[in-house]
């Protein structure tokens, strides 16, 4: 802690010497704030405002619209026109509630599967010979070189009735007739796990790779066989990586739209799909905005946990 403070002190120290340097330092600090205000806070306030509006057949498709030309009256009319009706709609109709629940369920299950696959993968990578490790990291990142959309389309090909998966299963006589993979939750899970695996593996690999091997020797020396050493040393020390990987997957999976839309069925929708329907099919911007605001509030919890883990990690390293 003290070291971090000291480091900060020296980093700022010289720049405080001259007013020009001080300006430069402030400007550098300002950049991320300007960015966040311009591209996150302002859009969010707009969305929040729309969520408190009513739909209208107009351009833009909602009322009230702030009319500054009308002066003070315009502002009071605008505020009087706002209402929380859309949030009441979200509570009254269980399609929204079900979408949120489905999104949370998919995010939980996918994250669990990702952990189960990603941890052994990352562990194997971290234990591989040094020379091989950079190649393995490369291979994990390699899918990013093709468009995300193309990769999801490729899965449609693999999972369809006469696709690669069914052909293989039939050839191996595991199934007698083609399985309907597409338009099912299984397809959603396959697509999500496939797409998000690098986001799970990389932070896990980063923590496991950093780990001091002599700690395992010390554990063995003190009487712990390999599995026990893993359980009492490796696993607890990799928890920051587990947390980072899990949240890095969990948060975007909740709002995932493309994968469930392309691979999933139409019987139960994830919140991203419901939002899309409200916005583009029903042209109901206010309700779509309300969904987005609630989604953000839901995500604030995990994001806060993620932030907390990150800072604690930085402190420990410092």
């Amino acid at each position: 802690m003290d070291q971090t403070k000291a480091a900060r002190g020296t980093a700022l120290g010289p720049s405080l010497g001259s007013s020009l340097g001080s300006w430069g330092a402030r400007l550098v600090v300002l950049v991320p704030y300007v960015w966040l205000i311009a591209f996150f806070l302002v859009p969010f306030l707009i969305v929040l405002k729309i969520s408190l509006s009513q739909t209208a057949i107009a351009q833009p498709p909602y009322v009230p619209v702030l009319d500054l030309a009308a002066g003070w009256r315009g502002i009071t009319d605008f505020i009087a026109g706002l209402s929380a009706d859309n949030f009441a709609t979200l509570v009254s109709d269980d399609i929204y509630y079900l979408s949120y629940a489905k999104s949370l369920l998919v995010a939980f299950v996918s994250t669990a599967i990702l952990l189960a696959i990603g941890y052994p993968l990352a562990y194997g990578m971290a234990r591989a010979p040094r020379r091989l490790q950079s190649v393995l990291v490369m291979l994990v990142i390699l899918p990013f070189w093709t468009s995300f959309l193309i990769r999801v389309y490729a899965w449609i090909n693999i999972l369809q009735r006469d696709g690669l998966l069914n052909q293989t299963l039939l050839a191996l006589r595991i199934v007698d007739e083609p399985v309907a993979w597409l338009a099912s939750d299984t397809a959603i899970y396959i697509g999500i796990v496939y797409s998000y695996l690098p986001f799970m593996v990389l932070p896990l690999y980063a923590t496991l790779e950093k780990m001091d091997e002599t700690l395992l020797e010390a554990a063995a020396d003190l009487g712990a066989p390999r599995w026990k050493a893993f359980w009492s040393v490796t696993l607890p020390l990799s928890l920051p990586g587990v947390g980072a990987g899990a949240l890095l997957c969990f948060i975007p999976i909740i709002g995932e739209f493309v994968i469930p839309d392309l691979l999933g069925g139409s019987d139960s929708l994830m919140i991203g799909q419901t939002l899309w329907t409200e916005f583009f099919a029903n042209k109901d911007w206010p309700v779509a905005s309300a969904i987005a605001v609630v989604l953000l509030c839901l995500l604030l919890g995990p994001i806060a946990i993620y932030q907390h883990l990150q800072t604690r990690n930085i402190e420990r390293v410092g």
Partner: protein
Amino acid sequence: MRRGFVPWADPNVRPLVRFEAVTRRFGPTVAVDRLSLGIYEREFFALLGPSGCGKTTLLRMLAGFEAPDEGRVLLGDEDIGRVPPYRRPVNMMFQSYALFPHLTVAGNIAFGLKQDCLPRQEIDVRVAEMLALVKLDGFAGRKPHQLSGGQRQRVALARSLAKRPKVLLLDEPLAALDKKLREETQFELMDLQARLGTIFVIVTHDQEEAMTVAHRIAVMDRGRIVQVATPPELYEHPNSRWVAGFIGDVNLLEGKVVSADADGLAIEGTNGRYRAAAGGDAKPGQSVCIALRPEKVRLAATRPPLPAENCAGGRVHDIAYLGDVSLYKVKLADGSVMTASVANANRVTERGIGWDDEVWLTWAPDAVVVLAR
């Protein structure tokens, strides 16, 4: 305790730890080469040598992290060569300490005890006992990153002693400490070892450290043991030029044996005639080397009276003032340089002998060791 502890001199006492013709290879390099060694109960044993001499490999074989390719490692009567580290009554204190960063001080010390599934109360008692032993009472709840280097070293020591091992291995345990703390800790280690009676095997490249703490020292070079002896024996009676040069400073003078009799050896060298009180089994005509420690050389500004045996003249080439002693590097007639160390018994503000002064070096016949190797 220290005085009269010489189990290695008693043929009836069997060493507890024995290496029998042990070889360990890493690819084409031989780290340990047909090495045999015995370490006795209650002994503080040091493995000393330059880096890459195989001392750490030897220690790791005792810990179980390396298995011998040939030969046997015995603890008592059991061949432990293939016993995994977690089943040996041997614990190690690592050079990096290897403390578990996610556990508290108490958690670190209790780690080994928990593996043995001891009851909770007993673990607590033992942890408190260990904390007291290394004078860290009150630090039980701290995490390793909240401790100073010296405190971490103590935790590592307490953790490796908690299981009451038969043998404690110390891999450069004090290398990360500053000089003052290192010297203090050396004496604490000696006290601790004497009190516990556990075999301590320390690996170090610091000869002063080995000389301070150990009953016996094994000097290693290229996977073999060159000499095993007590610190005074090693210093006063090195068995080879290599050991003489590795332990402390030494002047090596080449020569040929002229005569050998009851009075010792007469040796003809490039800087005059030398006499050695004891010459081992050197024969006349044999080329030998005499080893002479700098503190056993007398320095004089005037030529001593004849006969001029064990006397060499030269010019002061360099002087190093080290506080307690001054080192005089004297260039002899044949161009070689001899070092004499002179204790600064009085506060000298001005030296009697300065740069480029002509000086005479003399030494007693029993101050030298004759080395054939």
